[in-house]
């Protein structure tokens, strides 16, 4: 005879498994031996990457921009917790010094011919350039001063908590015109907390925006398309809302469709079939839905940039494999042309499948979505479950 009241293990699953806080699951990959080994193998005197891309100036003129991604100690939020999707810890070294950073700068400068051909320099640090715990103040000052001296518009990235009146006043004295890009990711506190583990709230973002506006600095807002634990349809619904919400406070809105960085929690979800990177069709739809808000009657309220990293690859935003190149190219072109005509005549058989997936995701209680492998043979479409 069994008495249910004597059942001390009150989990529904009788086989008790060890519980962990999400924090530890996010952090776990960093401590895998091969990741530690990889981190320490980086050359501290060379940047993570340096490249040039076409861009628009703040006045809307086509120009070239250099992107310098420095190898740093990484993000202080990662040190204590970290965002669910972030894989930048893979590119960092714990022992990078001021001297190393100067060496990296010099390397970049040499590689890009003293930045002669570019009008804009984006200096990214896998964290916040203006965060003293991550980047020595001397190097912060150097970057601000150097770009000002070169006459290049500087774009830096930052979380919100560094953007205090004091810090911005200091920076502004050195370089009066630069852009601060904030990884807001989502204009929704619940998403920031549960889906992203961002470590700051909308209140903090609004305070930072207020300070940037006060100091007359340009604001770029990064929004994430399809954060972890979110379906494709939900991502589309929410991202449209977020763009409309940040439009007034952003000179530029950059949509970052999720891509799967190795060794991250999202990588684990992806490999287990619990996450699929966005459809390129979703990005097209997103642009179409917000275009008139971003540029009502042709007036540009904010520049909308959609740059799908690893577009067309399984770990980046992708479609069926047949139309990816064409659709991704149209999306990239839109960021520069700001014209919906880029999407005229785009079509593929897979668009109907995408549409149906979105419909189910938006109307059913399927928080992780109903998405299937969009590159599987149609006959094998349903064999995974």
């Amino acid at each position: 005879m069994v008495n249910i009241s004597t059942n001390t293990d009150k989990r529904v699953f009788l086989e008790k498994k060890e519980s962990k806080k999400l924090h530890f699951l996010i952090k776990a990959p960093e401590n895998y031996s091969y990741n530690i080994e990889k981190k320490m193998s980086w050359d501290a005197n060379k940047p993570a990457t340096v490249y040039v891309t076409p861009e628009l100036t703040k006045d809307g003129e086509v120009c070239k921009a250099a992107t310098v991604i420095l190898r740093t100690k990484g993000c202080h939020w990662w040190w204590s917790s970290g965002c669910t999707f972030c894989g930048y810890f893979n590119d960092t070294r714990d022992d990078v010094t001021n001297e190393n950073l100067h060496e990296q700068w010099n390397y970049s400068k040499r590689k890009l011919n003293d930045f002669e051909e570019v009008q804009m320099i984006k200096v990214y640090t896998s964290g916040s350039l203006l965060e003293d715990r991550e980047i020595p103040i001397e190097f912060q000052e150097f970057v601000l001063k150097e770009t000002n001296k070169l006459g290049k518009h500087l774009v830096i990235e930052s979380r919100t908590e560094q953007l205090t009146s004091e810090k911005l006043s200091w920076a502004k004295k050195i370089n009066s015109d630069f852009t601060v890009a904030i990884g807001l990711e989502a204009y929704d506190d619940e998403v920031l907390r549960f889906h992203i583990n961002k470590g700051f709230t909308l209140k903090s973002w609004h305070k930072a925006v207020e300070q940037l506006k006060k100091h007359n600095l340009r604001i770029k807002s990064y929004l994430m398309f399809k954060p972890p634990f979110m379906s494709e349809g939900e991502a589309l619904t929410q991202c449209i809302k977020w763009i409309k919400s940040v439009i007034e406070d952003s000179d530029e809105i950059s949509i970052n469709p999720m891509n799967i960085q190795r060794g991250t929690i999202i990588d684990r979800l992806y490999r287990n079939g619990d996450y699929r990177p966005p459809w390129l069709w979703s990005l097209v739809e997103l642009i179409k839905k917000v275009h008139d808000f971003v540029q009502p009657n042709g007036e540009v309220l904010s520049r909308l940039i959609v740059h799908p990293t690893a577009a067309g690859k399984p770990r980046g935003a992708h479609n069926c494999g047949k139309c990816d190149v064409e659709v991704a190219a149209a999306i990239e072109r839109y960021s520069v042309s700001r014209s919906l005509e880029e999407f005229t005549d785009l079509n593929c058989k897979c668009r109907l499948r995408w549409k149906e997936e979105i419909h189910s995701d938006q109307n059913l209680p399927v928080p992780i979505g109903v998405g299937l492998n969009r590159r599987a043979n149609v006959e094998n479409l349903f064999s995974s479950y």
Partner: protein
Amino acid sequence: MIQSNESDGGSMGGDGFGLDISARQRYARIFKLGNRKEPLARTPALILYDDDYDLPVNLAPFKCSRIGDSLPPNFLIKGRGALSPPFEEPSPIWEFKQGNVLPPTLSETEIKSDGSSTPVLSLSLQRMMQDSDIVNLKQPSLVIVTDAVQLANRSKEFVEAMLIVRETFPSALIWCPGLSGPDNIALLTWLGVDLHDLSRSRQAHSAGMLLTSNGPRNIELDLEGDFLFELQVEEWKNEIVTIRESIRKLKLRELVEKRVLNYPKLVEQLRFHDYLLENRKIESLTRHASRDRVLQCNSLSVRSDPIIREWTRKVSSQYVPHNSRQKLLILLPCSAKKPYRISRSHKRYRYEIGNISATEISITSPLGLVPRELEELWPAANYDIPVTGHWDAEEIRIVENSLSGILDRVKFELIINNSGFDLGNEFCGIKVIETNKETFSAEVKKAKEELGIQEQSIKVNRMIEYQMISKWHYGSFSWLDGTKLAGKPPHWKIEKEGKPFARWNHLNSSFSFSKAALPVLAGKNTLPSAKIKLDGDWNGDVFAPMVISFDNLIRVGDVVLLYSQDDALIGSGIAQAPAWEWNNGCGRLAKVRHRL
């Protein structure tokens, strides 16, 4: 004895909407939705969502609509007809808070879900693993497994989760959004899922495929006409009707075995489900079945069916031949006609063997061995298998394992093997004499003389069978002490002190007990029991709200002894539902047979 939690109503779901069970087979059930006498719909059924195809209420009795676009989302689940008392307006209307959901990969994450619990329970693997409050919930009316699409990709965890959800919430409808199609609904129903949606068919349609019960296929326009969604709906209708018919005729297992061949994942899930039940030695399987019922064993996967495994396990590890019959073992072939003894071949064997104290065992597949005393029992009296005369390696292993298990416990002096199954001249150290049609009778006669085997009267023979059956089912036969057989075969009566005590009911292979037998059976702890609360006169049958506690060994068809709240034996009933449904289930749990 399991203490039953509080419940709302015998034929009501947790939130008081009309719910009753019209048929069941293991975890698959046909719920009647709405007024019990005139149900509006039956499960398996569909749940529509916004901008979905319009389908009749009897096929799609519910609709799910999202409320707003906030996160995490909320939904309204509405009855599309009058499903709740007083059955006048479309009802029920349930608000459902999905809550934040982590995917199955992160099920070990210690985050408490903020999803709703009642009347609609939002469940995910992570919540099942981490939310300790769920087991003590008031019974929900509907359980939505929100991560089912991802969970189903992990066959073992999926079937384990579904089994636990089904058993924990026996009177709730279960819905796995986005998962079901005509190609997998048979298995999902087998696992206990009741409600389904069109998402999978819509996805197939968008990919230009017709999703059938055999999986997706292209259509032939010249033969089938335009590729309209109505074709997809027809597939749903056909499969739902087939499933309901299969449950009613207790044939769902056979249908599931066909359908799982659609995809490897489904085969995995059925196997894991079988292993899970077998390993948990779950007692929720049927113990008694109607003589008319046929367990069709056409597929090899039937060998992993827990009812088959349970038989082979018990024969191999528990069955001990009667102590008066431990000298001579006679092995016989099975027969197409069941129970074997009514077949022409076995009538001849019985004639040739005579009434002697020897153990007779038939060799068969997939059960392995069927002792003569147990051949009237489910499933030995009910199975049917295609006959080829060929024994494959697994069949040989099952027979040899079962036989060596018996011979480990009992050292027979001789085996006469007339089964056609090759055992050689010696098996487990015991001499084997191979016989055939011509030599069988003579060898039996010879063995009888050489081993000094006694005759046993027909009455003794039958009483031994009753003892063995009782031991097989209940672990003992002490309740037969002091009884004797009266009457004539095959309608034997078991009497005690000249009064009727019990009789063998050959129509469903079970004992029927007289009122006088109940105190004896209670004293011997022979039968499963339940304690029920009575308010005033006790007229009807046993329903879930009456149950205070119950024995977790109750199986469908069992005679259950009924006790009052003050521990007085008050009667007996025939279980209509297995033990897991007695804890807050719905519908009739037992038909009362005797009131003391």
